[in-house]
């Protein structure tokens, strides 16, 4: 099982959002993609999921090119994703949100379901059982009959991840799953995500929460200005100078910040002189 970005680029008009990025993912591992805002992380996920067309390059799942496929075809191929801003089916119950994820697999038998009540009963029971099991794993079994919009934010996140897992995907793309979660919820998320490891599944997480990233992921890709800056284990990434500079700025940047601070202090000193001098500059 293999998943990879192969020299992928994305242009929006004259803006280069992704610049010749190549990444290989191995099953059984948890990957994180990090980078400052605007680095292009969500764009990568959107391309992998089929929301954006690729300008050049390929996205390969077991050697099969995904970039030309439609969104639902990519999903059926085994790529599941969650969204940065949660997109659940609000008016449907928690259970229904999962059941409907079984639709692609079961649609061809829809006729039998409609015309043969016995078959419908069996199919419905089977779906329910599968989905309830998943809900139990995510601690959502108690709210199975509740409308998704009524759930608290943290549980909605869990539901979205659960929904992505119903079809047993080979590639799981999570776009900022910890966004909006408090530290307790983030810890719970971390535990759950760890349990989702499978030998034939690739997990990719886009995140800003560095604690989560460092403690959860096996490998990290660092994006900066749409290009791959560095990749390695969490320890390697933390030690890498270029990554530090990307996040915090270079020495030159530090120097100009210090200069600016000096200038401001001088200004304030001058102002204090105009009135009564209260402090030493």
């Amino acid at each position, binding site marked *: 099982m293999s998943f990879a970005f192969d020299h992928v680029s994305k242009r929006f008009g004259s803006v280069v959002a992704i610049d010749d990025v190549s990444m290989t993912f191995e099953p059984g591992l948890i990957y994180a993609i990090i980078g400052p805002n605007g680095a292009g992380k969500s764009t990568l996920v959107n391309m992998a999921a089929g929301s954006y067309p690729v300008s050049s390059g390929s996205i390969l799942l077991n050697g099969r090119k995904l970039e030309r496929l439609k969104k*639902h075809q990519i*999903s*059926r191929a085994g790529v599941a994703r969650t969204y940065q801003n949660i997109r659940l*089916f609000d008016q449907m119950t928690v259970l229904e949100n999962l059941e409907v994820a079984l639709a*692609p697999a079961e649609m061809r*038998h829809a006729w039998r379901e*409609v015309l043969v*009540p016995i078959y419908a009963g069996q199919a419905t029971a089977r779906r329910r059982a599968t989905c309830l099991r998943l809900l139990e794993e995510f601690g959502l079994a108690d709210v199975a009959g509740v409308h998704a919009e009524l759930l608290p934010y943290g549980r909605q996140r869990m539901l979205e991840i659960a929904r*992505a897992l119903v*079809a047993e995907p080979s590639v799981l793309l999570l776009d900022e799953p910890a966004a909006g979660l408090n530290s307790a919820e983030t810890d719970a998320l971390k535990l759950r995500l760890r349990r989702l490891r499978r030998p034939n599944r690739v997990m990719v997480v886009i995140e800003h929460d560095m604690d989560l990233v460092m403690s959860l992921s096996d490998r990290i890709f660092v994006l900066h200005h749409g290009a791959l800056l560095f990749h390695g284990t969490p320890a390697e990434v933390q030690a890498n100078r270029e990554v530090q500079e990307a996040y915090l700025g270079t020495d030159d940047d530090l120097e100009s910040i210090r200069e600016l601070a000096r200038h401001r202090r001088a200004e304030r000193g001058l102002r204090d002189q105009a009135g009564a001098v209260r402090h030493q500059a």
Partner: protein
Amino acid sequence: MASALVAQSRSPVGRRLVGALALAAVLVLLLMVPHAGLYYVRLADDVLIYTLLGFGLNLVIGYAGLLDLGFVAFYAVGAYTYALLASPQFGIHLPFLVILPIGAALAACFGILLGIPVLPLRGDYLAIVTLGFGEIIRILLNNMDAVTGGPQGVMMIDAPRLADYALISPRSFYWLLLGLCAVIGVLVLRLENSILGKAWAAIREDQDAARGIGIDTVRVKLAAFAISASIGGLAGVIFASFQRYVSPESFTFNESILIVLIIVIGGVGNILGVITGAVALIVLPELLRGVAQYRMMAFGFTLAALIILRPQGLVPRSFGPVRLLRWLLAS
């Protein structure tokens, strides 16, 4: 008396009694209609035909969430199919039971043909294009004199024969329509509860997220279109065999609006809503015969007002027949 009933309905046993009585009353009413005057039978026939049409359009508007403003086109296809295959027009006289599936299938074909280019479009474009399609069908029917009889339409259409029995009177049609409504109603309900129905609900909620979990939205929407079109075609065949005369006048844009109204007023996405809407929109104007000329105005105003003030219609979506039965029988 009423207060006693209300008091009774507070206790579960009392409620079950009232509920059972109500159900029984409705059943008795349904059985009694053919024995009432001809006027009432014809009224009931009208209600039933529009209920059937409503079931069909409800699939598209209520379940899949698409605004089809040209539904009357499928109605027309069914009607003219029967008209041309069972009348002196071409000298063909196929039996009713043979034409019924043909009409439904042909309408479904038209539905698919219309759907394929049009369904990937956004909702507002879809509405306009379906509106145009409905009008085009009417213009074609009006102008292809050699085939469709033009504005004069097709006359002297055969009455349907079931075995040796010819259905001519409104009374016999009543039973046919009632039976058909029951069958189609059950079918539509089962569709709603099937995995296809869930897919429709997902598309209605968030089409993009639906695609994200692998639902082929175009195919699923096409299914809604095709099934709804075939129901419309079915109703058309019955209509033609009942009236024994068809002309383009019966298939105007206003008809499409009327059926949309039935669904919206009665309750979007709800079988009971369709029935309520059909009863409301057919029976009420009859009761208000005196102000008949204000009918269309009132319809238009009601539609707009309802959308603004109570968009879900009279019967909310979640209140289906199963829930009604449960509520009545207090189980």
